[in-house]
């Protein structure tokens, strides 16, 4: 009898509860959006009105002109610096991250204390935004590419350590157990199981970081007065939008090219 009752009432009750949850959720979202809009003086209608206006303006004013094209060699020079900077930061960070990931991963950690330290340091690094890192190093290293490198290095290190730890745990946990059972030493386990099993995936992460860092390098460059970001800001601030636009286009081409290469490499190595 009671089970019959439940069967009879529960579907409607269930749907009512679902509807209530959904309504409350939507109301909550609307309320928070309203609060956020007031706080930031954001106007949704302004925003949507701005899109066609900006789009029209972009098509009219952002096509690079002859003067912009004459600056291409200088732009490409800075772009090359930026590529180097992001590769350097990614590679240097990956080496440190590898060590930290070995210490911190559940599969390979030598002991709990090291693991805790490694994870905490990585977590703090990861959660300080790259912009903050740039500002921190700006004081002592001044407006230079090296400051940009340091900012990218620290942000990348935090991210890659977590990615590498997950990779190690996923790719090699079971084979590490088998090698331990066969009497392999710690260093043998790392060299014979962890590295062969996770190197390709780790490399894929490094390529991803190179790509991401080129975009971040633009931001860091704006903040630290170096690389392609600085180039953009000079043209932008002096209202030479057609040249600034060429900077943007060149970044797009490089990022897409790197993405294509990375994807091709991934297909072979993974």
């Amino acid at each position, binding site marked *: 009898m009671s089970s019959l009752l439940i069967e009879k009432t529960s579907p409607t009750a269930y749907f009512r509860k679902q509807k209530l949850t959904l309504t409350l959720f939507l109301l909550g979202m609307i309320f928070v959006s309203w609060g956020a809009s007031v706080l930031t003086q954001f106007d949704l209608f302004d925003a949507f009105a701005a899109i066609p206006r900006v789009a029209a303006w972009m098509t009219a004013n952002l096509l690079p002109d002859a003067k912009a094209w004459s600056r291409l060699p200088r732009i490409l020079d800075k772009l090359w610096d930026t590529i180097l900077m992001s590769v350097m930061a990614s590679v240097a960070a990956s080496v440190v991250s590898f060590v930290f990931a070995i210490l911190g991963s559940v599969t390979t950690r030598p002991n709990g204390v090291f693991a805790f330290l490694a994870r905490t340091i990585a977590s703090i690094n990861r959660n300080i935004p790259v912009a903050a890192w740039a500002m921190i190093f700006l004081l002592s290293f001044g407006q230079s590419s090296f400051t940009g490198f340091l900012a990218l290095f620290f942000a990348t290190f935090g991210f890659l350590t977590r990615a590498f730890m997950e990779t190690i745990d996923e790719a*090699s946990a*079971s*084979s590490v*157990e*088998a*090698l*331990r*059972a*066969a*009497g*392999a*030493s710690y*260093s*043998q386990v*790392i*060299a*014979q*199981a962890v590295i*062969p*099993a996770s190197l*390709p995936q780790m490399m894929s992460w490094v390529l991803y970081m190179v790509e991401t860092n080129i975009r971040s390098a633009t931001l860091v460059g704006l903040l630290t007065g170096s690389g392609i970001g600085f180039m953009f800001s000079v043209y932008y601030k002096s209202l030479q939008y057609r040249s600034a636009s060429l900077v943007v286009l060149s970044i797009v081409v490089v990022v897409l090219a790197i993405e294509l290469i990375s994807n091709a490499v991934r297909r072979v190595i993974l």
Partner: protein
Amino acid sequence: MALLEVERLTKFYGDSRALSDVTFKIKKGQFVAVIGPSGSGKTTLIRCINRLIDASDGSIRYDKEDILALKGAALRHARAKIGMIFQHYNLVYRLTVIENVLHGRLGYKSSIAGVLGMYTEEEKTKAVEVLQLLGLEDYVYRRCDQLSGGQKQRVGIARALVQDPRMILCDEPISSLDPSSAKIIMDYLRRIQKDLGITILVNLHQVDVAKRYAERILGFNAGHLVFDGPPSELNKKRIHEIYGTEAGELIID
């Protein structure tokens, strides 16, 4: 002369007991199956023997050595003399078959030689022989992720065999395999025991397989050793004691 002596072995996970006061001896060359429901302590037992898990109390003697007292190089050396095969094969799938098989030699090598993967000609020849024994001679250079489940498990057995073990621990070796591959693997284990005189200690989910292959069966329930005898003594009533009444009936039918 017992090869393995387990005495009053106990393992706690926090407050829960995975193994309580387990005592048994295994003679050299025996084929022993361990059965019991999930969570009865089978896997914990196997892993305590080669110290993948550290026991809380009790003692384990293997080949006259006190396993639980070993440290560092001595522990490595003891592990090298015990082979192990796993339910999920636990191979390095990006490496070739022969590279995985040679991993079985790491316990005997200096750290640096192992790190660099420098194996002697004898070791390589031994690996090839073992692969021939297991019918894998055509797959020596195949990457392990290109093999079928049954082939992967044979690579696992090969890796254990190049260790020159006196005993092989098998943790549910056929649970991930289809029936025909499972039979092949069990037949290989029997051959290894009969022809090479290697002791086999195998966790099994399937009572009928245990009865068919083992000379002796250990039954576990909730961390206690509740049955220890030849398959002929494992009747319906005993199975019920191991698995609990309802489950026992299902397994028999």
